[in-house]
């Protein structure tokens, strides 16, 4: 816990803890999730995310990173605590209100999670499902501006030539590009990414991280990335949140992350040192 306390002064410059300011797009307050009663996967997490920048959440697998990120858009139902998106508590929303909040949060997945039997362009247009009326979806009659936007985004991620291919015909890196484009199609206020590079080779991983960082910067939206790869986190994130055992044990800039922190997050490394 001392590590987290060390960093409070640093994060205080960014946003005063405990207060929701207009600068923060997203604030978590006391967020707890227990799949089994009395065994919380994440417990009492309070974090603030400012309106821009890449935040990497690092930690070993099974430490609740995925649960945390899914509690934000309520793919997982938090047990207690608040998720404040622009001041609205998402944990109180239901039905149409929840869906309206979800469409403002784009999400990128570890295994891309494209609808494999749909074409690439149709996968992108899935990002508009929160906006477009159902009959248009059923008839595949999307508004012209959405289609134009989708093609522009595909061109941006370098896949315009693949628009009519089926998603399962693409390589892993290409699929993740489509996944990012689909998330951005939602015109989100915030991007979430759950281990977006874990299924990719090292070179493609770097390209995907660059693409996510750049596209978020172009749209002036923040990104929260779950990632276990410390080197990638250091390279792309402006802030790192270290999690261990369901709690935040480090919150600060990448430069502040040292071997002691990493040992606390991941346990003792067998080879001795941490090379970031």
């Amino acid at each position: 816990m001392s590590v987290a306390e060390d960093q409070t002064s640093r994060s205080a410059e960014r946003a005063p803890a405990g207060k929701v300011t207009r600068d923060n797009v997203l604030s978590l307050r006391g967020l707890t999730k227990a799949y089994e009663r009395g065994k919380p996967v994440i417990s009492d997490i309070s974090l603030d995310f400012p309106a821009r920048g890449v935040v990497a959440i690092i930690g070993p697998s099974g430490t609740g990173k995925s649960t945390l990120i899914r509690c934000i858009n309520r793919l997982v139902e938090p047990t207690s605590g608040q998720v404040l998106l622009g001041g609205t508590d998402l944990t109180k929303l239901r039905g149409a209100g929840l869906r309206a909040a979800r469409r403002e949060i784009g999400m990128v997945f570890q295994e891309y999670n494209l609808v494999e039997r749909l074409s690439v362009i149709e996968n992108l247009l899935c990002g508009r499902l929160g906006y477009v009326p159902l009959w248009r979806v059923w008839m595949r009659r999307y508004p012209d501006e959405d289609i134009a936007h989708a093609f522009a985004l595909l061109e941006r991620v370098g896949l315009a030539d693949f628009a009519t291919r089926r998603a399962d015909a693409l390589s892993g890196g290409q699929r993740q590009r489509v996944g990012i484009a689909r998330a951005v199609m939602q015109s989100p206020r915030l991007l979430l990414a759950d281990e977006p590079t874990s299924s990719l080779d090292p070179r493609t991983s770097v390209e995907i991280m660059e693409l996510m960082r750049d596209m978020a910067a172009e749209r002036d939206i923040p990104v929260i990335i779950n990632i276990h790869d410390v080197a990638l986190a250091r390279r792309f994130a402006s802030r790192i949140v270290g999690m261990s055992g369901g709690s935040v044990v480090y919150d600060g800039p990448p430069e502040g992350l040292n071997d002691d922190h990493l040992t606390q997050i991941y346990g003792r490394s067998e080879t001795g040192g941490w090379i970031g």
Partner: protein
Amino acid sequence: MNKRQAELDQIRAVAFAPDWRMRAVWLGFVAYVIYATGQLNFTWERFVVGLDRGATFLGRMFPPEFKRWELLAEGLLESLQIAIISSAVGILLSLPIGLLAARNLMPVAVTVPARAFIALARSFHPIIIAIIFVKAIGFGPLAGILALIFASIGFVAKLFAEAIEEISLKQVEAVRATGASFMGVVIMGVLPQVFSRFIGFATYQLDSNLRQSTMVGIVGGGGIGGTLFSAFRRFDYDFVCAILISIIAMIMIGELIASWLRKTFQ
């Protein structure tokens, strides 16, 4: 080391142990077949008498008689209509019922009644359902159509529900994350994953309904079956032969169309 070897031997003995229970089941099955054959008085003499009658029957069937082709065509057309209408309605109804029965998308309170309905539709042979409908609403093709709609739901809805239960929920999760409504998730996240299989079930059911539609007439449900049954009763075996040949032709054409449909949609 020796102790380990003994343990491994133990595991090995269990891995290929003879299954006495299974052997007993097989033995019982064979014994019952022999017993049942004895019960039903199958004798060689009975078989020879049967062969003799069969020869006379076949002789009277040929040459087939197509002079009453109008009656034949009328019956065939009615069967075809029964098959197509019941397939269209039955398959269409199977979509929502199958969706309601999928345990990975629906709460138990919904899947249990949906599954109970499907089980009911599956529990009777179409002919029994046809008899019930003929008694309930009277002779004619409507009874046959209703019977086959019911049978179609039993088959297609069940397989459709099973196909939905096998989909990748990761794809569904991603569509949910976009803020899509439940129906939006179904249209873009669920249906694309099961559509080609659904086409497979549907064409198979069309094929099956084509065959069943020639049968419902026997119990008064309309179609060529009625014509066939009265031809049998009047001992018009040459006309019977003509009807059988026409049915074979219709089924084969139906099969061609079904396989063409499958290819087109996959």
